[in-house]
């Protein structure tokens, strides 16, 4: 027994074991819903027992045994699943073996396009990563009842609509993989844009997303976009420690202490990008990672290679057109061609992005460049209204105040 286990020690065990166990139980019972419930029950018991008893020496065997006890309990109470549960309680041991392909099949099932994205994310975190419904609800700022309902519905659909448990064939693979990557990036961003490890859940979603993306990359090593997303996450992670000041206020890229970035991780991500580039045409994640690499590799903000970033955004706009990508391209355009063409682009985007706080934040920045301080303050206020993220609000509020003072004194002169 490992005494006094930290949350992270337990999380590492859940990451390593839960997907494998859950995957093999889905294979044996043929019932995703039932198998996932049994494993989740075992996780909940572990979360109660391990902090007291310590993490067992063979945690996988412990979790399996606990899931088996749950299966026997169910068998006594409920005859519906008799045949399936009998499989688990009788011929249990020989069939349960750690087969990495089971886990990959499980990921593809959880991220099936017939499930809504938020359900894909929640199911993956529960079935593959061993997070509890309560932890997921906390991390995504919804009530536990809402999250539980989302998960129950998704699991019922997997069973009722016969969503298969398998790795898709080569024809479907690119589209299906894109679903997985989109869900993983949502998990990462939720961790990244929040204010660091969530104490309420004790799970660091960035670590979870990086771990799972690394796993998918090992299982599908020829897929360029998986490597690209991994590089993208690592580049963000390398700057993570400098994103907040001591008071917890968000620090803009321009003001971050570049000496404290993880330069070894940045170099490793660069190598990963090279490897991805050799495997295929640059996809959306490759382009985003290449942009992140441009920022991460610049020795100072002023030495950022903006023409290169603008070109990459141009390629990204062609590949996945959307107003948010165009907004980012407009910001790069300002650094290359000045504020006038950037403002024209922002004006054109206004109808699409009227409800997006970062549109108004970017607009405020640009208006300050023109000295239009009243309008800048107004745009910052719009941005504040539109975001719930406390650290983003704090940053916007700290820069709003001097803008208002300067605007007032300019108006008085």
């Amino acid at each position, binding site marked *: 027994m490992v005494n006094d286990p930290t949350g992270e020690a337990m999380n590492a065990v859940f990451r390593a074991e839960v997907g494998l166990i859950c995957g093999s139980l889905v294979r044996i019972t043929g019932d995703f819903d039932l198998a996932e419930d049994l494993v989740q029950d075992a996780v909940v018991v572990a979360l109660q027992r391990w902090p007291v008893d310590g993490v067992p020496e063979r945690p996988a065997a412990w979790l399996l045994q606990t899931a088996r006890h749950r299966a026997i309990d169910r068998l006594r109470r409920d005859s519906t699943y008799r045949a399936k549960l009998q499989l688990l309680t009788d011929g249990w041991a020989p069939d349960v073996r750690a087969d990495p392909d089971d886990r990959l099949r499980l990921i593809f099932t959880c991220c099936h396009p*017939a499930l809504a994205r938020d359900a894909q994310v929640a199911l993956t975190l529960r079935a593959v990563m061993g997070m509890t419904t309560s932890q997921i609800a906390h991390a995504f700022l919804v009530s536990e009842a809402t999250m539980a309902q989302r998960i129950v519905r998704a699991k019922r659909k997997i069973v009722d*609509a*016969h*969503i*298969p448990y*398998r790795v*898709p064939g080569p024809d*479907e693979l690119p589209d299906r993989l894109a679903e997985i990557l989109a869900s993983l990036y949502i998990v990462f961003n939720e961790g990244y844009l929040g204010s660091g490890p969530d104490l309420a859940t004790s799970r660091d979603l960035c670590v979870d997303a990086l771990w799972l993306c690394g796993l998918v990359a090992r299982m599908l090593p020829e897929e360029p976009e998986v490597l690209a997303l991994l590089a993208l996450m690592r580049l963000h992670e390398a700057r993570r420690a400098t994103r907040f000041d001591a008071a917890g206020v968000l620090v803009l890229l321009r003001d971050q202490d570049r000496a404290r970035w993880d330069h070894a991780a940045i170099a490793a991500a660069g190598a990963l990008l090279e490897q991805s580039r050799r495997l295929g045409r640059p996809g959306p994640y490759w382009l985003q990672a290449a942009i992140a690499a441009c920022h991460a590799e610049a020795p100072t903000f002023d030495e950022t290679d903006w023409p290169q970033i603008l070109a990459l955004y141009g390629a990204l706009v062609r590949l996945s057109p959307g107003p948010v990508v165009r907004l980012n391209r407009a910001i790069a355009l300002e650094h290359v061609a000045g504020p006038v063409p950037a403002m024209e682009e922002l004006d054109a985007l206004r109808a699409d992005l009227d409800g997006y706080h970062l549109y108004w934040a970017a607009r405020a920045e640009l208006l300050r460049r023109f000295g239009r301080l009243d309008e800048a303050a107004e745009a910052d206020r719009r941005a504040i209204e539109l975001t719930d993220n406390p650290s983003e609000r704090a940053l916007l509020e700290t820069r709003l105040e001097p803008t208002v003072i300067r605007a007032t004194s300019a108006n008085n002169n």
Partner: protein
Amino acid sequence: MKYMLLFIKNEEAVSDDATQSAHYAAIDEWFAEIGRDGKLRGGEELQPSNTATTIRFQEGRPLVTDGPFMESKENVAGFVTIDVADLDEAIAIAKKWPPKDQAVEIRPVVNHEAMPHHPVG
């Protein structure tokens, strides 16, 4: 596993005769393919929704009204039932449905044989 594919069509959109007959040729080919594979369990093309009659029950009494169940410019224009291994196979078949201006809704069919309280035969 049986699924019903519902073909949803925008009834306000008009297409010329040439497009229509090209559609029908492609649709025939689509039917021939799933028929050859032994996966087709029947289906029909429907008259437009302005021919629909809807029966509602008010306090148990049937009330006959003109028109579809829900007024919409997009309506079910036809359906087929297929028998395939799983949802992925149904999706693969639906993706090949030739009229690209239509939508295909896939609905799993309830398997009554699997329900112990609902004996069949």
